[in-house]
């Protein structure tokens, strides 16, 4: 085989690499401080190309419908959706933020919000709010405060979620145990879980599943015991209330009401539940999407969380934020405002996977699974508490994952674990 090198293409190649070297070397930090400019609703002839970063493939269809409606008003604004799985989403977002290449508009969650807002990576919605394009009063207060920092509002939620107990009635029937009423206590929950596990021991089915992550399990019980997770920049784990909230899950596992902690690591609680081998599962309202089309869908009902000293549940919601260095801020804010609006949120609710955050648009979500009493998740807003976050939430979330299992498995006393966690968490919080 004879190959003839063309001198020109060789030289272009070398030059190309040279350019690469230079640009790599000059990737300096341009300062793009977030300043809230005056916002006016753009004219319908505005032309722009936007990117929209999200993490949930199952919601893309509903998003696309909303974008079509948006384009009917603004035909000149092209929006490209970019989906990154949740497991990689924030790793990617952090890289994009470091190189000032964030998508124009993107999804944000509570634990990560302060990191981005505090470092000037996102644009406040002060302008659109003053112009009347977005009104924070239309959304649950616990959630709008989640997306404000030092008195500045950066976004409003596109959806919301609360926690409830998903119940598989078929399991209760097999066990011959009655499904508890809505007004139930911790003791009732524990005894019901143990009774179901005992009755169905031979088939390897359990009554409930132990605590695995904060949002769906132990944050709720700590709140219900009257405790807090983080307050004024210090950890609240070393309090009797927090110990009681963590102890709830240790007791559940010790009583046999739940599979052991190791079993739950191999096969997660949601997998136990969806395969019909779990009676009660503490899960978010978003879990509805995972049940659609399964064998157990018709046997499902939902109960509010059993009552401790107080009644509580964690509330959280995803927000759409505009990047501070977006080239098309006006168009991006227009899209942000549209997606926050009643019409767009109504469409989300009809798609059924999430609860829209706009007050008054939620009824369609409850109708998406008529037998299951999804109304529980909406009623919970009254006594809901925001997901605990700080400026670098991930740092102490890692500590929770590292240390709390010793309490759940019973290998160390709860009080020792929470004391240790509190001191390590305080050290992490002090670094923020």
């Amino acid at each position, binding site marked *: 085989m004879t190959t003839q090198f063309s001198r020109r293409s060789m030289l272009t190649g070398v030059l190309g*690499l040279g350019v690469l070297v230079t640009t790599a070397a000059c990737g300096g930090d341009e300062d793009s401080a977030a300043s809230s400019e005056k916002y006016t609703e753009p004219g319908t002839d505005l032309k722009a190309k936007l990117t929209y970063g999200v993490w949930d493939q199952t919601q893309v269809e509903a998003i696309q419908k909303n974008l079509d409606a948006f384009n009917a008003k603004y035909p000149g604004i092209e929006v490209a959706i970019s989906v990154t799985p949740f497991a990689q989403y924030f790793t990617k977002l952090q890289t994009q933020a470091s190189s000032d290449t964030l998508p124009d508009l993107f999804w944000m969650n509570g634990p990560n919000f302060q990191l981005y807002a505090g470092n000037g990576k996102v644009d406040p919605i002060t302008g659109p709010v003053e112009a009347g394009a977005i009104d924070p009063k239309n959304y649950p207060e616990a959630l709008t405060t989640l997306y404000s920092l030092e008195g500045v509002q950066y976004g409003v939620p596109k959806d919301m979620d609360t926690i409830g107990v998903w119940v598989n009635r078929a399991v209760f029937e097999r066990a011959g145990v009655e499904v508890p009423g809505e007004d139930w206590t911790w003791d009732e929950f524990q005894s019901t879980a143990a009774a179901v596990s005992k009755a169905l021991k031979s088939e390897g089915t359990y009554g409930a599943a132990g605590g695995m992550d904060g949002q769906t399990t132990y944050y709720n019980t700590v709140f219900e015991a009257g405790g807090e997770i983080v307050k004024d920049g210090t950890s609240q784990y070393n309090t009797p209330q927090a110990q009681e909230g963590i102890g709830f899950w240790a007791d559940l596992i010790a009583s046999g009401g739940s599979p052991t902690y190791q079993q739950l690591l*191999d*096969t997660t609680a949601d997998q136990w539940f969806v395969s019909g081998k779990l009676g009660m599962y503490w899960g978010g309202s978003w879990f509805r999407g995972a049940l659609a089309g399964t064998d157990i869908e018709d046997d499902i009902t939902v109960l509010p969380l059993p009552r401790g000293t107080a009644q509580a549940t964690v509330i959280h919601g995803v927000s759409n934020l505009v990047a501070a260095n977006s080239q098309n801020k006006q168009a991006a804010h227009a899209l942000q405002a549209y997606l926050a609006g009643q019409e767009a949120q109504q469409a989300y609710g009809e798609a059924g996977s999430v609860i829209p955050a706009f007050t008054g648009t939620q009824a369609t979500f409850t109708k998406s699974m008529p037998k299951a009493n999804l109304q529980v998740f909406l009623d919970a807003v009254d006594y809901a508490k925001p997901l605990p976050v700080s400026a670098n939430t*991930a740092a102490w979330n890692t500590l929770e994952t590292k240390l709390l299992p010793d309490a759940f498995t019973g290998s160390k006393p709860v009080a020792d674990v929470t004391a240790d966690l509190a001191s390590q968490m305080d050290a992490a919080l002090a670094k923020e």
Partner: protein
Amino acid sequence: MKRRDGFWPWLFIAPLTAGVSVFYLWPIVKTAWLSLTESGVFGGTTFTGLDNYTSLFQDGDLYRSIGNTLLYTAIVLLNIPIAIVVASLMNTPGLRGASVYRVLYFLPYVAMPTAVAMVWRIIFNGDFGVVNYVLGWFGIDGPYWISTPGFAIVAVSVVGLWSSVGFSVIVLGSGLKQIPPELYEAAELDGASRVRQFFSITVPLLTPSIAFLSIVTVISGFQLFDLLYAVLGNSYSNPTIYSSMSLVYMFYEAGFVTNEKGLAAAIAMVVLVLVALATLVQFRLQKRWVHID
């Protein structure tokens, strides 16, 4: 004429040199610098001297990670003896379907590590997995492989071993092809048994391939991340990962989860030094046991 002699060689190696400088040398220099700083989450660094190294060497996690990495590498190195046996069996003259076997052994190597890990996660499942089901036939109550500290890293190593045999078989297979058949004929005339032939002819003449494989395996062993992450790390809140983590996992955790970029850079430098040392030692030792005609 002379001037052009000086110019052309440089031009021809320029693309590679540029590539290596941009993608290898510059990152190493940059990482070395970052390891001496404390970085903001989105860039912006302050010089802190050797602080990152001091806190790293005081942290028990580092030594546990090095231990796990070494254990993993040691277990995966077992793929070489296994591959020698498999490759020489496949080299038997007149073996039918040799290419089919070659494909079967090579498939795990080309499969995506994440896909491989997902399947093994199910195989290792303590309640519903195949491994414990089979152990049950013999009355053995298998552990929760991937959620028991101690067992988890071994389980991951077994997967690594399994998926690296194929590559070694291919490399050793081509090494075997270069051994002249006359040697075996002569040995046979001298009355050497098949086993004797294997140890006196096959193994010594394969040593160049074995040396190559051992270096490559050690380097990739030190870079263990994807299997570990996919088998243990992706179920939220699996604390087993902390007792089983490798050096590169520790790097990932520091760099992308807890946002300690400077510390992560320091870990990367430790990995660089360890890999360089291990490779140097292997090159030195090679002179003693590798036969090159």
